[in-house]
């Protein structure tokens, strides 16, 4: 049995941990609201972009001159897995879940005989992936020095990805991130971003004569990088919201567990204290009787 002093120290230590988790939970709750609003505000743009892209893509014929972002490199050999995780911990299994999803995909591709490379965004996913695939880490995009990854970061990432495919470093790119469902549920999601997956039956609703200024090809060439940026931006925003949601849930659990632990320890502490007093009393009474 632990001594009274040990128990007391233990209770104090759990209490200070609880303070931290409680504070983190409240911070996450406040940030979650903002991140959620940001994710929602970005939706009209992404939706519009998608509509335009699909109606354009169905009109343009793909040949060897088309952009690699649309047509790919004509091979399916090297797959780039773009894994977006958070920069901070204390958010439960959020990062682990995304990385797990990426690993499953990587294993599947490797088994099929493809090559796999990783491009990481955010600090937390790196060590896990590095341990599993030390020779497959291609690039890392650092977001630690910005408070919230915004459109500028998305643009920079898109530019890097475009440069890498032009160098022939990879053929297909998949983007991994945590899709925000609710504060309780975040779904690790994979999405193919390069080349743009062709949706069956996404033929434009016979809009008739639309004037294109300049022509379709040029508009498409301008739109493709922008579409990539938008997708990455959307993923970053979803990730932000998911991270805060996961963090809030995890910290809420931790706070509650700490509370339970404190209650139990306090009971043990009081019991041992009473036992010690009783023993002392018996000793005194026995001593007095012996006289």
């Amino acid at each position, binding site marked *: 049995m632990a001594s009274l002093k040990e128990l007391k120290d233990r209770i104090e230590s759990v209490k200070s941990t609880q303070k931290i988790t409680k504070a983190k939970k409240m911070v996450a709750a406040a940030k979650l609201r903002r991140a959620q609003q*940001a994710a929602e*505000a*970005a939706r*009209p*743009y*992404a939706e*519009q*972009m998608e509509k*335009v892209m699909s109606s*354009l893509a169905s009109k343009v014929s793909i040949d060897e001159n088309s952009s690699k972002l649309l047509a790919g490199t004509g091979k399916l050999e090297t797959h780039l897995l773009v894994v977006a995780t958070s920069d901070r911990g204390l958010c439960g299994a959020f990062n682990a879940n995304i990385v797990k999803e990426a690993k499953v995909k990587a294993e599947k591709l490797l088994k099929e005989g493809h090559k796999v490379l990783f491009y990481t965004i955010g600090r937390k996913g790196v060590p896990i992936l590095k341990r599993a695939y030390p020779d497959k880490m291609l690039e890392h995009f650092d977001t630690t020095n910005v408070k919230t990854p*915004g*459109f500028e970061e*998305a643009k920079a990432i898109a530019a890097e990805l475009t440069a890498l495919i032009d160098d022939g470093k990879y053929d297909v790119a998949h983007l991994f991130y945590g899709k925000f469902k609710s504060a309780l549920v975040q779904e690790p999601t994979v999405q193919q971003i390069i080349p743009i997956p062709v949706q069956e039956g996404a033929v434009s609703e016979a*809009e*008739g*004569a*639309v*004037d*294109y*200024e*300049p022509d379709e090809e*040029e*508009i498409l060439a*301008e*739109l493709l990088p*922008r579409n990539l*940026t*938008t997708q990455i*931006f959307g993923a970053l925003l979803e990730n932000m919201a998911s991270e805060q949601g996961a963090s809030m849930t995890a910290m809420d659990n931790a706070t509650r567990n700490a509370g339970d632990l404190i209650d139990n320890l306090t009971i043990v502490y009081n019991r041992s204290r009473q036992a010690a007093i009783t023993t002392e009393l018996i000793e005194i009474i026995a001593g007095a009787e012996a006289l």
Partner: protein
Amino acid sequence: MANLHFELVTPEKLVRSDDVFMVVVPGTEGDFGVLADHAPVMSTIRDADLVIYVSEGAAPETITVQGGFAEVNEAGLTVLAEAVS
């Protein structure tokens, strides 16, 4: 005459969604004014001013847009811009 439904969207947010009289869009190949029932057009835009006339004869309102494109369809005019100021 019915008004033109006009939306200006950036990646961060929906900047404006209004029924207006006319919008002059700075297209890559030249400015063009869009009134209600304009024929469907899709155009990339220059970094320049978007001029909005809320009603006929009203004082023009300008919004500077950067990078993006404009689409006119039966629902109205949608401008997707990377940044506005």
